[in-house]
């Protein structure tokens, strides 16, 4: 037989690789060659490379056990073109320039951020079919022909599933060719989507299935940058057909982890799909007839099959026996593998008769470079389990089978226990029809013809093959985690009985591969050790993801600027142009201050504060929440929501109000303007706008549906500009010539409808600084025009724009609390010194009853007070604890409260703070202490004051 000189184990013809497209790649620094259509694993085997990785705990050489995503050992680090840690070589599609290294256990994340594009798509369908093997393809075809919206996903690069690795014939064609034709037909139907290279990895309630599509990794460096490398599919399906196939199982024998040990079905796949012979001389050990087909095919392709050690005392069924006999392959019933030698690669296999866990006769040594294994098949029911499906152990099938699920899901093909191709095709057609019909479509089953099923001997249930040595230190059950049968027996020996506990104690099944080829083996070891039926052991819980998914794929486009919405006002561009530093307030960007060249934040805020106190300044306050409350009962609703009386407000007037929760704690505050008899405009804090709107709706809809009131959020309908400072009246007069601005004509806490800078406006005379101030509301479309008009209204004396930091200082100097900063959900209006805002007259309002609880009247409740550090330069840290002692005492330390706000004040010429202090109002004039850096740092003495530190008489309000 002639073979490629560079690929000594490659056949000259056959397989689904493209020999006209040779590829070069490097593995462990060595340049090798393969073909388009190879996986990294098949190309390595074509080059005779079996030792691919090193085990995580024991450092043992490891090879390639499988040909698919269940691979437990052949983990590689892809280094180029896109670095990816810890991928099984069996799923890495070969491409030009691929560079990879075998791993010693764990991969490593690349240090560089992954800037490749990843995205996500939502999809909906009537029928989702997972798995494009024979059953899945027929199911999808039947459903697609019915007119249903169908999505078919499969993890391989092309449809066909197991057919890609066999010579089965369907409908007169090679199975793989039949699969390609059927898939093309399906895809041509309207409203059908076929997704290859797509792994469904999560199955959640309401038939919500999440899958990842690998779209460009197989293109290597040629991958277009604008195409998402991977895509997360969020699929909502009315019916799901799981045609996820079966995993071939490993067996527990000594040194079952040697490179050159290969699952029999996978060897067959390497032969038929990739044109690769995984060895020259093979031994097969099996408990299942299906492996005889693999041995026969390999023998036909030129592999010398030295012997078959069939653990079943009766050996295989007639068809398998005939296959072996025709090729002169010796079959040894009741035999197992008792030793494997060959460090880097299987060199010799010892076979001996075994029965009931003991070697019952002399061993014979067989020279071999390939050991084929089949421990039978486990239906792939991970997604079924995630969906809430129950499993039952079927002794005849020696496997767990589906046993009912609360979700609208059907299992088809070998995932449901079907053994033959004919059975899979019929099962798929049945599942496709029932799914389509359940989704409301008339469907017809069409089963393509194929050859009949073999007469098989029942699969064996043996799991443990005794070794030559008395212990089972090299009988691996989890090759990835290096867990042996001895480890599992150690777990049961210390009393663990639950398979979940054994998993956590031994780590078996916790690895990258989740022990897909070994879970049944672990269950059998545990059952045997406990002396119970394996059916009572069950399985560990199946959880997403079915296979590892890159974080980058899950993050998708939700990163950088698109990670979270940035909300901006109509004036935002102006702020950016002006060089503002921004603060995040919820999702809003708000200017914090506007530093001039060379100014530090302290200087900028100080300058802005002086402008507001001494001249005129302006601020974008558009983010404040605004809610229109309309209807005949609007006043009744507001009286119940606010602690103070609202309904007595006259049209044209404004009132400050506080809302409490039923427990009496402050929820939010703001102003209420009465626009008409049945119409109020409520403002909320920026961060609470949505919450207050929801709060109103909740009470209206659940408790007071009889009230004739409608609430409508208008936060963003209006752009609002605050004009603050002693000169603000003059500026407003210039901008609004039609408005009578004199204090007597336009008193504090009233509003006027007028025209400002040619723009219709609602002007409110309210103040959050204690200065003469106005808030001008205009249509958001006109917000920038208003702001620019205000900027130029100052003439040569510039009007200073200011930001949130300045606003905070100005309000704190006046002792105005900020809900959420000076309150934390445990603070009453009385605690804030605002007993005046709590009505004594109203019969009821939210929180009223709580104010008669003894707890809200306690004398040692925390009160909002001012703190003046004795050193006027020391700025207290917000959140700093306040204690009575001058030195931090030994723990436990009694904290009297904490600093809620702390600033430098230009107006006061010093630092100051607000704090919530136990019995604070009774401590005014007293001395307390704030430790700065924990118990070892300096302790700052402070004087307790009333919270209003600036203009306590309110003399500045009228300018």
């Amino acid at each position, binding site marked *: 037989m002639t073979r490629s000189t560079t690929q000594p184990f490659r056949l000259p013809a056959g397989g689904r690789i493209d020999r006209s497209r040779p590829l070069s790649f490097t593995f462990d620094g060595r340049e090798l060659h393969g073909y388009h259509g190879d996986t990294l694993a098949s190309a390595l085997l074509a080059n005779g490379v079996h030792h691919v990785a090193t085990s995580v705990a024991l450092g043992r050489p490891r090879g390639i056990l499988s040909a698919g995503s269940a691979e437990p050992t052949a983990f590689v680090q892809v280094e180029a073109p896109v670095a990816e840690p810890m991928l099984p070589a069996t799923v890495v599609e070969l491409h030009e320039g691929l560079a990879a290294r075998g791993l010693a256990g764990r991969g490593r994340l690349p240090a560089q951020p992954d800037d490749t594009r990843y995205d996500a798509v939502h999809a909906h369908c009537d029928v989702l079919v997972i798995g494009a093997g024979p059953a899945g393809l027929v199911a999808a075809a039947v459903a697609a022909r019915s007119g249903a919206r169908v999505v078919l996903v499969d993890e391989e690069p092309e449809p066909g599933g197991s057919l890609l690795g066999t010579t089965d014939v369907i409908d007169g064609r090679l199975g793989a060719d039949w699969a390609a034709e059927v898939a093309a037909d399906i895809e041509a139907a309207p409203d059908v989507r076929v997704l290859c290279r797509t792994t469904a990895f999560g199955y959640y309630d309401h038939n919500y299935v999440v899958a990842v599509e690998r779209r460009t990794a197989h293109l290597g460096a040629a991958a277009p940058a604008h195409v998402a490398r991977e895509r997360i599919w969020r699929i909502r399906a009315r019916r799901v057909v799981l045609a996820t196939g079966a995993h071939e199982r490993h067996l527990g024998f000594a040194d079952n982890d040697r490179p050159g040990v290969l699952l029999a079905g996978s060897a067959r796949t390497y032969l038929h799909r990739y044109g690769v012979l995984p060895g020259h001389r093979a031994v097969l050990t099996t408990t299942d007839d299906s492996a005889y087909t693999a041995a026969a095919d390999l023998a036909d392709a030129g592999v010398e099959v030295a012997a078959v050690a069939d653990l079943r005392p009766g050996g295989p069924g007639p068809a398998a026996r005939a296959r072996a006999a025709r090729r002169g392959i010796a079959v040894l019933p009741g035999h197992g593998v008792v030793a494997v030698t060959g460090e880097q690669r299987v060199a010799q296999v010892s076979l001996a008769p075994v029965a009931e866990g003991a070697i019952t006769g002399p061993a014979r040594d067989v020279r071999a470079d390939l050991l084929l294994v089949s421990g039978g098949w486990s239906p792939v029911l991970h997604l079924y389990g995630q969906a809430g499906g129950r499993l039952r152990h079927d002794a005849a099938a020696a496997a767990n089978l589906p046993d009912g699920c609360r979700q609208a899901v059907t299992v088809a093909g070998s995932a449901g226990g079907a053994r033959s191709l004919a059975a899979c095709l019929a099962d798929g057609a049945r599942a496709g029809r029932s799914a389509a019909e359940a989704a409301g479509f008339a469907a017809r089953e069409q089963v393509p013809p194929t050859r009949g099923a073999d007469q098989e001997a029942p699969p064996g249930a043996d799991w443990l093959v005794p070794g030559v040595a008395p212990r089972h230190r090299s009988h691996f059950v989890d090759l990835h985690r290096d867990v042996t049968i001895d480890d599992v027996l150690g777990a049961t020996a210390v009393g663990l009985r639950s398979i979940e506990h054994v998993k956590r104690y031994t780590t078996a099944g916790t690895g990258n591969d989740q022990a897909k080829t070994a879970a049944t083996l672990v269950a059998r070891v545990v059952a045997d050790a406990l002396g119970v039926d394996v059916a009572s052991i069950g399985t560990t819980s199946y959880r997403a993801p079915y296979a590892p998914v890159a974080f980058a794929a899950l993050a998708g486009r939700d990163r950088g600027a698109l990670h979270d919405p940035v909300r901006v006002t109509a004036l935002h561009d102006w702020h950016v142009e002006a060089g503002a530093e921004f603060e995040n307030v919820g999702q809003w960007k708000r200017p914090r201050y506007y530093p001039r060249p060379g100014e530090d934040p302290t200087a900028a805020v100080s300058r802005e504060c002086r402008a507001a106190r001494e001249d005129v300044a302006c601020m974008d306050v558009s983010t404040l929440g605004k809610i229109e409350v309309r209807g005949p009962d609007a006043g009744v609703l507001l009286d119940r929501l606010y602690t103070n009386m609202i309904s007595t407000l006259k049209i044209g007037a404004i009132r400050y109000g506080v809302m409490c929760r039923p427990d009496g704690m402050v929820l939010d505050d703001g102003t209420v303007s009465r626009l008409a008899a049945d119409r109020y405009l409520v403002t909320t804090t920026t961060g609470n706008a949505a919450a207050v709107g929801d709060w109103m709706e909740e009470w209206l809809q659940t408790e007071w549906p009889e009230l004739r009131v409608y609430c409508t959020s208008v936060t963003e309908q209006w752009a609002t500009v605050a004009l603050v400072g002693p000169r603000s009246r003059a500026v407003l007069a210039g901008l609004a010539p039609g408005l009578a601005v004199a204090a007597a004509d336009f008193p504090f806490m009233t509003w006027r409808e007028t025209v400002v800078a040619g723009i219709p406006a609602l002007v409110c005379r309210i103040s959050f600084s204690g200065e003469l101030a106005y808030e001008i509301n205009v*249509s958001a479309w006109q917000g920038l025009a208003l702001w620019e008009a205000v900027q130029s209204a100052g003439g040569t004396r510039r009007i200073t724009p200011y930001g949130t930091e300045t606003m905070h200082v100005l309000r704190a100097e006046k002792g105005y609390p900020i809900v959420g900063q000076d309150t934390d959900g445990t603070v009453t209006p009385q605690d804030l010194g605002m007993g005046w805002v709590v009505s004594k007259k109203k019969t009821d309002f939210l929180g009223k009853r709580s104010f008669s609880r003894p707890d809200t009247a306690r004398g040692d409740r925390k009160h909002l007070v001012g703190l003046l550090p004795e050193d006027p330069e020391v700025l207290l840290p917000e959140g700093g604890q306040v204690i009575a002692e001058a030195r931090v005492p030994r723990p436990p330390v009694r904290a009297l409260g904490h600093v809620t706000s702390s600033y430098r004040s230009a107006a006061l010429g010093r630092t100051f703070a607000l704090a919530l202090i136990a019995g604070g109002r009774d401590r005014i004039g007293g001395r307390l202490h704030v430790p700065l850096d924990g118990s070892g740092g300096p302790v700052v003495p402070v004087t307790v004051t009333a919270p209003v530190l600036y203009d306590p008489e309110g003399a500045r309000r009228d300018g």
Partner: protein
Amino acid sequence: MAETSTRRSPLAGHADRLAAATLRSAGALRIEEQPFRTHLDLRLDPSGPGAGAFAGVVGVALPVEPGTTAAGTGVEALWLGPDEWLLVGPPGTDGELAARVHAAVGDEPVSVVDVSAQHATLLLAGPRARDVLAHGCSIDLHPRVFGAGHCAQTMLARAPVVLVADGPDAIRVIVRSSFARYLADWLLDAATEHIAAGA
């Protein structure tokens, strides 16, 4: 009608980029802002006399089927809730439309609130419009389910939106103006492959 020369729509600064994306898609996608449309939030008892008289006076019947729209002459009504609709009209018609509503409803409690400047409207049209939205919208936008005459309040990416199906290949996205730039940026990003596919 207020002075219009100084007004600025939330996505005025995005017009060029939206137009460029439309052009590059070569017919696959049209994406544009529809600025200054009149939007009135209407709250009214659907079983009251006002709702009955509505169609005759205002020119559009109030749809009562959840998630549906009704088109009238110069006005459209979108169902937002059992007693809430969004009335949509051409730019500058807010005052006249509100007057018609009040005329229809009379003394019955009603809330008609101008929210025109609170919203930005984006139109996505073309064969890839639904595919672009599917990147960030979890509801089923298939024409069988969400054809012309349907609307939905949902999330698009991380912004709350109202989607309105204007036809088999056209969906209108109504979003709060503070989210408009984020959403336009997101849409342009989501369109990346679909634009290239049309080129």
